[in-house]
């Protein structure tokens, strides 16, 4: 894993340039340009707010803001994994012609979506301000949660993108699994809504549930993230990333030959 990360560091210029380019490419030639960063989550929020806040009448106060806090990091995760799945298998042009560490490609996807997430944070804060919830001292824990999610997202994206080189239908499976995953992650509801006997299992089995509730704790409830839960997820994420790095190490040659 160390070698894997060191290579990433060596190629940070490439990573940075590809990320920049990815961001620019996303908005180049579109009328709204950069504003698309906000439009997509806002629309989603509006849809969910309408369905669950007004039609289903959720009793969570400031429901739309609550959704937004959990939705943004979820979008970072799901978009990274979803579009990261095919990132290696699609870049035949690069992998078969130039020698460079393949892990740059999934990392670029994760980094691009991270930037998107960070850019939409001011919008979230503004929205909270509208309902009178401003970030307080608990925001100090934000970088920690962010880092945990980064490691977890990188790990998942690495594994999926590496496996997708051999199993090309994985990307379609992943797309469906992500939809399911979204609904078992407490973005639209609070974990307490899960029946008691399953609640523990629910939080243990789904790292994104722990991460999401941590964000909601920081920005919505003004409390510190559950330290033990977060530590477990952090540890698990590091292990996952280490495994992913090994998978990359082993399959490196296969990439050039198989893509």
């Amino acid at each position, binding site marked *: 894993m160390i070698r894997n990360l060191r290579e990433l560091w060596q*190629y940070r*210029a*490439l990573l940075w*340039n*590809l990320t920049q*380019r990815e961001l*620019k*490419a996303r908005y*180049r*030639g579109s009328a709204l340009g950069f504003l698309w960063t906000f439009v997509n989550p806002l629309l989603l929020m509006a849809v969910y707010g309408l369905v669950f806040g007004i039609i289903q009448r959720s009793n969570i106060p400031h429901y739309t803001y609550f959704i937004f806090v959990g939705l943004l990091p979820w979008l970072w995760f799901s978009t990274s994994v979803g579009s990261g799945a095919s990132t290696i298998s699609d870049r035949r*042009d*690069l*992998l*078969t*012609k*130039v*020698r*460079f560490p393949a892990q740059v490609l999934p990392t670029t996807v994760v980094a691009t979506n991270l930037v998107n997430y960070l850019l939409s944070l001011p919008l979230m804060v503004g929205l909270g301000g509208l309902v009178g919830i401003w970030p307080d001292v608990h925001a100090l824990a934000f970088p920690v949660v962010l880092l945990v999610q980064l490691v977890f997202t990188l790990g998942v994206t690495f594994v999926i993108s590496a496996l997708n080189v*051999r*199993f*090309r*239908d*994985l990307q379609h*499976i992943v797309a469906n699994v992500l939809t399911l995953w979204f609904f078992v992650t407490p973005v639209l509801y609070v974990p307490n809504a899960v029946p008691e006997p399953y609640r523990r299992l629910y939080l243990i089995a789904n790292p994104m549930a722990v991460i999401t509730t941590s964000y909601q704790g920081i920005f919505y409830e003004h409390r510190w993230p559950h330290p033990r839960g977060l530590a477990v997820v952090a540890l698990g994420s590091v292990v996952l990333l280490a495994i992913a790095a090994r998978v990359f190490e082993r399959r490196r*040659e296969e990439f*050039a*030959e*198989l893509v």
Partner: protein
Amino acid sequence: MSTTNAIVLTGVSKSFRKSTIRREHTTLKSELVRWLKRQKRPEAPSSIIPALRNVSLSVPRGRTFGLVGRNGSGKSTLLKLVTGIYTPTSGTVEVHGRISALLELGAGFHPDFSGRENIFVNGIILGMSRREIRGRMEEIIEFSELGDFIDEPVRTYSSGMYARLAFAVATHVDPEILLIDEILSVGDEHFGRKSAAKMEEFRKAGKTILLVTHDLGTLQRRCDQAAWLDAGELKVSGNPVDVVAAYRAAVAEAEVAGLEQHVPRAAVPVQPRSGPPAEPGRRWGSFAAELSGVEIRGRDGPQHVFSADAPFRLLARYRRYGAVEAPQLELSLRTDGGTLVWSTTEKLPDSEAATLTLEMPRLGLGDGNYLVDLSLGNAGGAVYDVHRGLHGFAVRAQDSSGLLAPVHRWSIEPTAG
């Protein structure tokens, strides 16, 4: 000591799985179905395809090394092994020095971005640092001769402009070892010359160059050493002139074999009565008499590639089965383009069988591929056995062109002016 060599390959073999080459990918679904049915993976050892077999090669530091071979002979695989994109199945690849590979122009170019922006990503991919790129930016733009187009999106470029930009970036990487895969022919003639000059500059600067090319002229002019790969094996390695000669001879041989690919050469059996099966357009007749065992020979035996001055012989067996009246053999020599070069008719004896030999002490033909057509019949219009396009040979003469190579002599005497 390995330090005198920039690249050393020792007993390198590389094989690919057939499924890899056909780009067949497993799916989770099919794996799952197989697992449920408890079947084994259908992976026979025969599905391994060797691309390189036991190749040993060393490229001395500061030299230009050329690699020739037909398509699919393993040249590109070898370059990719040196680059590190592939790793050898067995054997070792050692590279001493910073390497830059021009395997494909414009790796990582994004059509929506300007030339200038693409120089950055492409340069980084090729191994330059941001600072290096910034420092050489103007130089690269100037070399590409794109002018104001440099700030336009790459998708608006013509293919020539695209190639020029890509080549400009690639040659400004400043590597110690440069790998080039037949890309010197990009762009127009002017740019081609510029590229060649840039390569010459690399050579003079003492860089090691490994070049894959089909252009034998380039190979002879620019390379200090050369090697010829055929079907993954190293055939000849050494002086470019020798390598090119060996390669030329083999290609000519292959061309002739291509001309005659339908011939069961020397194997047309002598069958009483029925005769050999007719091949529409290539062999036909009543087969009341038959020509068999047609063979083209040089001085020492069967030969298919001749020099203009070489002796030439054609052998055939004649046999009569039915009623044949005043048989005669017409022989025509054509170029592979169809132009008749020479035709002659010879009367045959009234015997059961005969051996026929045509001898030419000096062939006297120019560079090209030729076909010998034989027609066994008689003046009355009977057709017994016609061979068309079945027998061929090639002439390789580098110092002249045209159909004929007559015996000639120059005498040039200086006179007082």
